[in-house]
């Protein structure tokens, strides 16, 4: 696999390009032959900030 790309089963897609799709639906519309799992795989991990309550505890 080429650095910066993700395998799709048919080839490779640039990760930053896949990430440019705001929703899985938009990605699926542009790439109907590629699984939306590809889009999901490259989504940045959400950082959950501890709430103030949690910090107080």
């Amino acid at each position, binding site marked *: 696999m080429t650095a910066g790309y993700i395998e799709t089963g048919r*080839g490779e*897609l640039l990760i930053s390009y896949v990430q440019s799709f705001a929703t899985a639906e938009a990605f699926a519309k542009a790439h109907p032959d590629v699984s939306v799992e590809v889009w999901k795989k490259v989504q940045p991990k959400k950082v959950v900030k501890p709430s103030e309550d949690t910090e107080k505890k």
Partner: protein
Amino acid sequence: MSNVLSTLASTNAFGNTGVQTTYFDPKEIIGAILVPKDWKIDSTYLGTLGVSLKTNLQADTRKAIGDRIFPIFSFGGVTDSSAESKYQTFGYGSERKASDGKYTWEFDLMQGGISLIKNLRKFNSSDYDVIFCTRDSYMIGTKTGTASQMKGVSCDLLDVKPWKLSDGSNATGLKIKFSLSLAATAELNENVEYIKTDFDIESNVHGLIDVRAYETHAASTTKMYIGLTTNENDVDLVALLTTTIAKAGAIILKNADGSVNTPSGVAVGATYSGLEITGTFVTATSMTFQLETPTALAALSPTIGAEPENGIESNVLTVAIP
């Protein structure tokens, strides 16, 4: 001895004549490797006990022009047109040698068609040296002047003759002629250097195969459709290799100004055969497509064109963006 003007350097005029039970007695030459003038095999190239020789030779077949070596095999026979040595006979009958004969060998090529002739003819009169390979896996070259080094034998003329028609009694009309230089006589005798390999050279060191890149459908500002077939057999490499070759690391895409264009996707074509390349392509420009270098392709995982396969090299295809 210091260097003195008008004084010839001399060496002792003798050589020991003991003969051992095994000795280098060149057998039939079954192939040759064309090598650049500055190419050489040294102790680093060989590795300990010669362990690196095969992989270095294989790697050299995939290098860029200037460093690449070109193996030619399947020699089926030879016509030795070498000149005889010339002697002068004096009035009283004594003889002295005037000059050594010059080597000229012409080999029949058993395999390879017009495409091979076309490519080999590009070497006609070119400035490459030659390593000869024998049936019993010897590589024959010459000394470089530095200890433990071997280089190719110098060649005045490498000529691949135009093909001739088969008349039903002959199978091939492909011939390659090596007219070695005046220096080559000494290079192959007094200064000969050779390596007995522990592998079959012909089946381990292969020349590159040309790959034809072409458009299977007109490009747009976001899509490009590229077919890849071997030059002579028309083997569809995308159908054969699928996702092994449908990757960004296997191609080089350039914009009209020569800058590299990073495609957003490379896939096996769904609508059209060949590769389907997705990206941002500037309208009304001419871009270029080519496969990565043979060295880079062989370094991919999975590899493309690494031994035991032949390496591959594509043309540079100009793609017009509407």
